[in-house]
């Protein structure tokens, strides 16, 4: 409101969301889940990628939510969508057919090749923690042309060995993913609260290629259970711009207001 605008501080989640949103090219067909991916995709749509085509697994095609959906079945996804189809149709005619350019995935555990566990911690038949399960993830991992993984960087999440392979990344690395016959290219990037990891072109092992402002290589190594490889030159992520932060916060505020009137 005043003449000069101070640079706002921002949270690590905001940095993650902004970094993910920047990965989306305008016009891309994005398969979006609820939570941070939905924030990132809608931030992109409200900033540099107005023609981003959002597909939610509940069957909304070209969704244009003005507030963030509370769940995959939220009416705001259907309201301004170009089309609404059945769940089999969105998985078969869109995802499996190779029409999705970018898919988002979260993870409870991830390994160095971007394989993901969202099923169980501990033995399958006698679990320590029973997680929600597969949902749409295995086929997003299989068929989206590329996958953006978003998760917080902790040594419990970045593990040497997955307890369960729910969704395939680069499998055992190298060319081993291709043997499975999937059309999707695999995880292109892992965005955490500390930085950005991208796969080595040959080995397909994920390498730390950028750090968000304030994060250090040491922190990233400590938050990774395997011996994390670090790029020769580690980029520094551009902090959220004023516009990115403003648009993201307006989106969240609108969402909060809408939630308030709903309960």
């Amino acid at each position, binding site marked *: 409101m005043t003449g000069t605008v101070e640079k706002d501080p921002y949270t690590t989640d905001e940095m993650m969301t902004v970094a993910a949103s920047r990965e989306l090219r305008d016009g891309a067909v994005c398969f979006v889940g*609820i*939570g941070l991916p939905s924030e990132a995709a809608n931030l992109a749509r409200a900033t540099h990628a107005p023609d981003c085509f959002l597909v939610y*697994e*509940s*069957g*909304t095609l070209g969704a244009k939510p003005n507030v963030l959906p*509370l*769940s*995959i*079945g*939220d*009416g705001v*996804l*259907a309201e301004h969508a170009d*089309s*609404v*189809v*059945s*769940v*089999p149709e969105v*998985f*078969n005619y869109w*995802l*499996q057919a190779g029409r999705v350019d970018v898919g988002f995935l979260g993870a409870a555990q991830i390994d160095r090749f971007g394989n993901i566990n969202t*099923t169980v911690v501990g033995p*399958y038949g006698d*679990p*320590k*923690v*029973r997680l*929600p*399960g*597969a*949902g*749409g*993830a*295995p*086929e997003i991992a*299989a*068929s989206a042309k590329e996958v953006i993984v978003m998760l917080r960087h902790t040594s419990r999440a970045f593990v040497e060995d997955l307890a*369960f*392979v*729910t*969704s*395939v990344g680069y*499998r055992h690395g190298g060319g081993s*993913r291709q043997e*499975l*016959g*999937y*059309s999707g290219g695999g995880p292109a990037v892992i965005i955490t609260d500390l930085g950005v990891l991208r796969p080595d072109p040959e080995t397909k092992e994920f390498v730390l290629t950028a750090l968000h402002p304030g994060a250090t290589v040491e922190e990233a190594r400590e938050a990774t259970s395997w011996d994390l490889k670090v790029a020769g030159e580690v980029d520094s992520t551009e902090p959220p711009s004023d516009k990115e932060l403003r648009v993201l916060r307006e989106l969240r505020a609108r969402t909060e207001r809408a*939630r308030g009137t*709903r*309960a």
Partner: protein
Amino acid sequence: MGGMDIGQDESQSIVSRSQDSGVRKAGKIMSLREAVAEFVRDGDSVALEGFTHLIPSAAGHEIIRQEKKDLTLIRMTPDLIYDAMIGMGCARKLIFSWGGNPGVGSLHRFRDAIENGWPEPLEIEEHSHAGMANRYVAGASNLPFAVLRGYVGTDLPEVTSTIKPITCPFTGEELMAVLALNPDVTIIHAQQADRRGNVALWGITGIQKEAAFSAKKVIVTVEEVVEKFEARPFGIVLPSVAVNAISIEPRGAFPSYADGYYDRDNSFYEAWDPISRDRDEFRGWMERHILGVDSFADHLRSIDTEEAAR
């Protein structure tokens, strides 16, 4: 075997199994209590579908009140209603693809049953969403299996026996087959029925059509009965000949959405977390608000009263 023995059944027609005469009776309006008593039997495989929109909560409560046992519960996204049914000991087995409290966190009763066998051991059969969706499609099509590109390279085929490789007879390619789902009973919630027993859904209609068409018997709860359906973008209609019973249950999808009627009550989803976290707290709540009331309408009043008293 509940709903899993499809394909081995001597009759190949889904519909004829549930029909004694050659001519089908159209769906008739009856109370939800009658519908559940008549169509849901102990040991049945039961699918309550609604992909976070139009969740048939009222029907879930009625099953709990009637203390149905040994059910094989089928649902892509077991959420609050299945958490409650599992915690109340209705289920012997769960067939699902994603079990969480959407936007909030864990399903504590679901986890307690799987992690600790409380109140009784829960057999699980898990798939991906695509796998579950295609299993319903196969069931609705009277086919014993469906084919998809998925599961290869994951650990799911190792733990789920209803996923098997299949080879394309033309190209030699290997794909994955999933066994069809044909629930004994499917229950869905819809916005409207008309007087002839047709059912209209709109907004996100998810997997409801396939879940209904794959089942031997279909119960639909609706917000209201209308003279005539309006044109709605992307609305679907289930003809009355595909429906066995219709029960009028306003707000029957609470706390989820019913497009055109109400939005999700997010505070209830958040409140479920502490309600369901502790076994005694859960049991007490269930006794006060589900077992101790006569209907879903009474349930809604009872939670409003408790809310107001705070």
